[in-house]
């Protein structure tokens, strides 16, 4: 990558006050996304993926404490005034949420929600905005878009709603789209369609995209780079092809092993990752994956492994005992 990244997240931490003490939701995360590239962020529930995306959007809960720098298009998002930030959202940054059942306003028609966004941000007159709205709905694969404009969200299926949410997010031609588990609430058949749609629009608009998911299978074919998160930290980060061919972090390998495979015989037990993620209000001294890791020893309990540049090209991992590429199959 020669040109500077569109978004660079530098040492970002997010702390949330909870009744049980400070919760370190995101722990010194560094990420970069260049224009037109796709970054996948993978991790299990509660690993801080969503908090990281909210931090990038500056939409954290009021009580959350954010530290670090989030450089977007040459500006530090953390330092921006609320007004400047507001203008940045929409035209530069947009987001698609996990649940299309709640991310659309239930009492406004699809048309109102889509057209108002266009009018507010793109300064379009109502007829032009309506025309553009129909084009956008058609672009995200919604049949009979003219009729859909007059319908309410509850009259559409989940997949349709997510398409509408994507159309609204794309309406302002954002430079960066954050898709926060965009397919988790959808049927498997619809999942692939939505992911293909996102990939196609991302390519066509030369837009950067952060695809947040808990499913390694989702990022496999559709991202340029993958960051694996565990307990608030990025534990492995590599170009997608490298990650899948030379997996180093035992956690990533365990995640991959936990995906059901079509060719495994029926009634095979799925290799789940034993145990639970550590309590984020009581950070461990050592590697946070150590209690669940088969390769852990005293060193893992005592000291946190840094996110180091690996011996192979472009990848980074945080592990004292990384898997050797050949060992992946056994893990």
């Amino acid at each position, binding site marked *: 990558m020669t040109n500077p990244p569109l978004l660079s997240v530098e040492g970002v931490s997010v702390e949330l006050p909870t009744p049980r003490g400070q919760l370190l939701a995101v722990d010194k995360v560094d990420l970069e996304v260049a224009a037109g590239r796709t970054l996948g962020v993978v991790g299990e529930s509660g690993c801080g993926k969503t908090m990281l995306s909210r931090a990038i*959007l500056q*939409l954290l809960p*009021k009580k959350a404490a954010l530290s670090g720098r989030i450089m977007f298009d040459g500006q530090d998002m953390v330092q921006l005034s609320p007004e400047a930030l*507001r*203008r*940045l*959202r*929409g*035209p530069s*940054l*947009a*987001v698609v*949420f*996990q*649940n299309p*059942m*709640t*991310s*659309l*306003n*239930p*009492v*406004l028609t699809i048309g109102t929600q889509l057209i*108002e*966004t266009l009018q*507010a*941000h793109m300064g379009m007159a109502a007829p032009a905005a309506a025309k553009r709205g129909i084009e956008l709905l058609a672009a995200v*694969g*919604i*049949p*009979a878009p003219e009729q859909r404009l007059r*319908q309410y*969200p*509850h*009259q*559409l*299926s989940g*997949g*349709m709603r997510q398409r509408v*949410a994507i159309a*609204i*997010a794309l309406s*302002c031609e954002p430079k960066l789209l954050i898709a926060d588990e965009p397919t988790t609430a959808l049927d498997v058949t*619809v999942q692939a*369609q939505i992911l293909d749609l996102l990939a196609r629009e991302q390519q066509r608009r030369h837009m950067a995209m952060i695809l947040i998911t808990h499913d390694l299978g989702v990022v496999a074919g559709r991202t340029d780079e993958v960051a694996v998160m565990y307990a608030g930290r990025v534990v492995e980060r590599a170009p997608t092809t490298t990650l899948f061919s030379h997996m180093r972090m035992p956690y990533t390998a365990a995640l991959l092993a936990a995906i059901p495979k079509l060719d495994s015989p029926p009634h095979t037990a799925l290799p789940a990752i034993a145990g639970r993620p550590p309590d984020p209000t009581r950070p461990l001294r050592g590697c946070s994956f150590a209690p669940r890791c088969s390769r852990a020893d005293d060193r893992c309990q005592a000291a946190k492994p840094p996110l180091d540049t690996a011996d192979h090209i472009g990848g980074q991992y945080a592990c004292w005992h990384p898997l050797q590429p050949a060992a992946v199959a056994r893990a």
Partner: protein
Amino acid sequence: MAVLEIDDDTALVAPVAKRRKLGGLFLCAVAWILLIGLAAVFAAFLPIASPTDMDMLGKRAPPSAAHWLGTDSLGRDMLSRLIYGARVSLTVGLLSSVIGVTVGGALGMLAGYFRGRLETFTVGGVDVLLAFPPLVFLLAVLAYLGQTVLNITLVIGVLSIPAFTRVARAVTLSLSEREFVVAARALGATHSRILLRELLPNVSLPLVAFFLLGVAVTIVVEGALSFLGLGVPPPAPSWGSMIAEGRESLDIAPWLAFLPAGTMFITVLAFNIVGDTLRALTDPRPGAL
């Protein structure tokens, strides 16, 4: 690209099914409210006797061709007094609820959306207002400022603010957690835009339902005040004072008390039915969203 999601049929059928649920009772209630409302508005143009003209020879007359609903103890036309009394009841009922719904709704939405100190103050103020005995407040204010329709409306309006604030705040609180609010902010919507365009349409349905129930309650409150002699001063008619006057002759002319009482009963019932129906229509929706 083959994108096939067949939900056209269900989507197009849905609105028709909803209309059927309203039912005959709802329509009767709406018709009654319209009848009373129109009569009150156009009372001056209706071919009815003056509500204050006394016919000393025809006191407590039963219904006749000249006086369709009879006359009261001073020989005044009952129908005319009922219609003019509706003016007072509906004015007070509607206007004070309008005060409550606008002030209370705005306060509740702001408190529920911005949270923080604003919410603390609003909830505190509302609690103070709720803790104050309403009848004492009414008596005190009306004794000092005078018993005019305007004063009665204002006082009852202020007293109805807490209930509306609570409803609006509760609804706003639960809606603010929804992703569409975060989505709107992520798209760069201003606070006022989120409040007016995203939240208000959602909050207004339960508020309108509650508004109609509020009107019903206010009509009863105004009636009670008039019954106690604290409403609009005589000779202006009001349902509550008519009941009070009719009470004295319950044994010889029971219709003098029962006619205004019945009218008030049906009117309050009608507002309740309409309010309940609207509430029932809005209630199942959060579950279906």
